[in-house]
């Protein structure tokens, strides 16, 4: 019974070893050019604005202040008031404005200071942007990108620290992306901007300042990553670990610890939450016969819940040697206390613990 349940963090392991969590792994390949996620996003927006006159960005403080997280740095100076628009503090207002602009032929990028505030405008996102194409029987499409930081941040407690991946992934009509690396962010955002449908791009505040290697290809102006395709970040043969956004980092760090003990985990970076790349997941599980899903969001109706359910409904279920397991954020609003906050989302050692329990290794 227990193995089928979610391993929520506060119950599984103790609080003692949580301090190391904030330290990033710095052992990535240094051969390629390094670029922060923030700069990758900035480059993607800049290139697409240059490429297509219809693309413009709007949001709170995106213009003169360069964006609350400086993602739009320099764009207002380059493109001016017409295409980089500071909005009043009214999420439902500017989201509706963006939807209307898209219906009339523009390609807005709608920045939310954080996706927590996008809840104010969720009707515009789901009921208007997400359904107008269907309700107009294919005559009015809404090419729009909703983007901004999502998920657990640091020290901002219950109302500013939560993942909306499952919320948006629930809704037909929307496409939902949750990138991890700088390449992911650049390639996926560019594809999203060119897409004919509304796309929700869930970024992560803590990742903004993280530098990742960028291949020469990724620095090109036509670097696009297809929506709906996952990426195998690290190949392995013993267990498949799926994750999205910052949890990919947790999964990779956990996999590194496991490698030291002779367990080779295959880490899949989902990249898209809707559509979900089940093909990559099932292929991997057919090889490893084990699955652990890792996410920072809540367990109920979460991304992990969806992956496990789909696996169970498919033939690939018979390839599993053990029941698949979800590793998720604790099922509580995010605590403010630093030590508890760290313990409320999966850590690398929790990944190790979950994998070992799943593989029945001591």
């Amino acid at each position: 019974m227990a193995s089928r349940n979610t391993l929520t963090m506060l119950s599984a392991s103790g609080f003692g070893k949580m301090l190391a969590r904030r330290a990033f792994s710095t052992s990535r390949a240094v051969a390629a050019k390094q670029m922060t996620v923030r700069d990758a996003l900035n480059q993607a927006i800049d290139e697409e604005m240059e490429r297509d006159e219809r693309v413009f960005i709007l949001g709170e403080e995106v213009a003169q202040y360069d964006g609350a997280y400086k993602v739009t740095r320099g764009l207002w100076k380059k493109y001016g008031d017409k295409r980089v628009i500071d909005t009043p503090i009214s999420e439902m207002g500017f989201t509706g404005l963006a939807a209307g602009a898209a219906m009339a032929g523009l390609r807005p990028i709608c920045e939310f200071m954080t996706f927590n505030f996008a809840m104010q405008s969720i009707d515009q996102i789901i009921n208007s942007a997400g359904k107008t194409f269907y309700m107009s029987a294919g005559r009015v499409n809404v090419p729009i990108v909703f983007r901004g930081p999502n998920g657990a941040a640091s020290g901002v407690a219950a109302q500013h620290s939560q993942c909306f991946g499952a919320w948006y992934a629930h809704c037909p009509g929307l496409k939902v992306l949750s990138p991890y690396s700088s390449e992911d962010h650049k390639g996926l955002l560019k594809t999203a901007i060119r897409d004919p449908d509304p796309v929700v791009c869930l970024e992560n505040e803590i990742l903004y300042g993280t530098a990742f290697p960028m291949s020469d290809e990724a620095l090109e102006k036509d670097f696009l990553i297809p929506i709906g395709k996952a990426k195998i970040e690290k190949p392995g043969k013993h267990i498949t670990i799926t994750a999205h956004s910052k949890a990919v980092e947790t999964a990779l760090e956990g996999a590194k610890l496991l490698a030291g003990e002779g367990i080779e985990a295959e880490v899949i970076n989902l990249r898209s939450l809707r559509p979900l790349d089940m093909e990559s997941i099932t292929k991997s599980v057919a090889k490893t016969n084990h699955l652990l899903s890792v996410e920072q969001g809540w367990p109920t109706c979460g991304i992990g819940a969806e992956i496990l359910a789909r696996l169970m409904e498919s033939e690939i279920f018979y390839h599993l040697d053990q029941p698949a397991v979800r590793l998720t954020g604790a099922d509580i609003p995010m605590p403010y206390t630093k030590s508890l906050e760290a313990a409320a989302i999966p850590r690398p050692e929790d990944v190790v613990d979950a994998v070992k329990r799943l593989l029945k290794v001591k």
Partner: protein
Amino acid sequence: MALNKSISLLFRIRKHLRNKNQLCTRFSSSQPNFPGAKTSWTEKLQFTDSSSYSPIPVYRVLDRRGNVLHPAEDPKLPDDVMLKMYKDMILLNVMDKILYESQRQGRISFYMTSYGEEAIHIGSAAALKLEDLVYGQYRECGVLLHRGYTLQEFVDQCYGNVGDMGKGKQMPVHYGSKKLNFITISSPLATQMPQAVGSAYALKGSGTIVICYFGDGSASEGDAHAAFNFSATLECPVIFFCRNNGYAISTPVLEQYRGDGIATVYKATQLAREYSIKENKPVLIEALTYRVGDHSTSDDSSAYRSPEEVLEWTNDYPTKKFRFYLETKGLWNEQKEKELLTVSRKEVLTAFNAGEKKLKPKWSELYTDVYKFLPPHIKKQQQEMAVHLQKYKQHYPLNSFSS
């Protein structure tokens, strides 16, 4: 609401406080110099309420008998234009009666009539250009009618049959027409308001405007305030057309005025359009009206207003006023009225009967238009349904669907 915002506000206040000398000059000057307002000082503390100033007067062109009150205000429209306007008002009425009844008989699931508000639809539609984009709320089918949406298209949409351009994907009266520049109706109230501003922003400088209709009830939604704010700050050519019928479904507003009429609406919309294009500015028109019919088929207005009140307004009907006006010009008479009613009724019934007989759109349309390109997982659902229907076809009313 944003944490960062309140912090930056704090900084701003502190910055102001630092410069005390400047602060002193500001408050000792003859006029207050706050960044948010241009006003005067007062030493008298008092509440300001609706009785503190006189309300905006209601503009009118015709009196109750259809006479022009001020010759300079007569819109002086060509005869054929006026006759089309009048005929559309009557046709709208007749269509409403028949489709309302069809809902009551269980033939369609929902309907909304426009009784009493015909002048608003037709008067404003006539003053606009077809290129102007319309965002309706839901009670604006007269605008569509005047733009050329056919009776058959109305009926087909309400029935969601194979003739419906919307492929039966929306509930009745949620019309939309790309050809007629009319955005598909969205049920949640007031969402069309910021969207209209967004479209106006996109159309800025093109010589066309956006008109956004909404009811007085919608004005309470937060979207309305955001829309007004944006339209002004982004200088968008948009007309906000408020249909103030005095009731937000069942909640009455405090004050009511009389004086609507088609000539008034035409003149006001025409002027608003000119101004909006020339100045790149939003205009708000508040059309004071009376919804003679129920809010929708889900409503029974006798629960919140008296039959006498409704009767009184029925006698002050805008169509009547316009008819008097046309009669004084020698363009209309009792005979023509009778003929028009008979013809309109016949036309609506023809469309109605044809619409009722039409098949439903192909069932597989259920899966289209979720995304621009059919994704594999939706295609899979479509195929599964095809296999299922093939196997169990005898259990489904497949012959009522188009193939």
